[in-house]
């Protein structure tokens, strides 16, 4: 195993799938989290994910239930909450919007991409293969990042990153 530690930023849908036993993506998500642990890589989330989780509070009993289980996933997999520079995250997300990385309907996704970039994440992991783990979205983000002298990021699904870890790390 290489000692090259990577930082993996989790999207909210990964946390929710990991914490819901009956979910169709649960087993693959857990396999992915176990592989990250075996590879000794670091898992993080940023404040845009906290904004998402907070919304669960407004969804009644089901929301409380999902929130409690999602939060239980954080210590279980040693997921750390990174301290964002909120203004920079907002500014970068607005720049992505200006550059039409995604439309304003998906501004929350842009906040996550900005937060992950500024947190120096190597990978953003999301089950959303249309608006996140999508080549044209990643290219558009990285065009802005290169122009701004920020690091380039990779956005992949848990399934894809599991494959990378199995083939290249373990």
């Amino acid at each position, binding site marked *: 195993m290489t000692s090259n530690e990577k930082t993996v930023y989790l999207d909210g*849908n990964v946390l929710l799938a990991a914490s819901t036993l009956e979910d169709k993506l649960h087993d693959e998500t857990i396999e992915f989290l176990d592989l990250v642990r075996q590879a000794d890589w670091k898992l993080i989330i940023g404040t845009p994910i906290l*904004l998402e989780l907070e919304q669960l509070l407004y969804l009644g009993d089901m929301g409380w239930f999902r929130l409690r289980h999602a939060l239980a996933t954080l210590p279980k997999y040693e997921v750390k909450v990174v301290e964002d520079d909120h203004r920079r995250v907002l500014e970068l997300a607005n720049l992505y919007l200006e550059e039409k990385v995604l439309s304003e309907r998906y501004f929350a996704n842009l906040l996550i991409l900005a937060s992950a970039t500024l947190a120096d994440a190597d990978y953003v992991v999301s089950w959303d293969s249309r608006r996140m783990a999508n080549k044209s979205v990643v290219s558009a983000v990285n065009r802005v990042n290169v122009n701004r002298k920020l690091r380039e990021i990779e956005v992949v699904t848990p399934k894809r990153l599991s494959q990378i870890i199995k083939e290249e790390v373990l």
Partner: protein
Amino acid sequence: MAKAREEESLSFLLDEKLKEFVTKNVLKAKPEEYEEAVGIAKEVIVPLSKAVERSKKLVRMLLLGG
């Protein structure tokens, strides 16, 4: 367009809804408004997360009041 596999996941669909709410709340927010929204989320979620870590029993009391 064919349904993507993830669109059959309830967690995925719930997350899309949460992202919609976040977008509605912070799109076109001024920096100070965004900072306030993040500050509130941190004040609520971070202690709750620590409480979950410390004790499931304590969380049960917090959430269910019993």
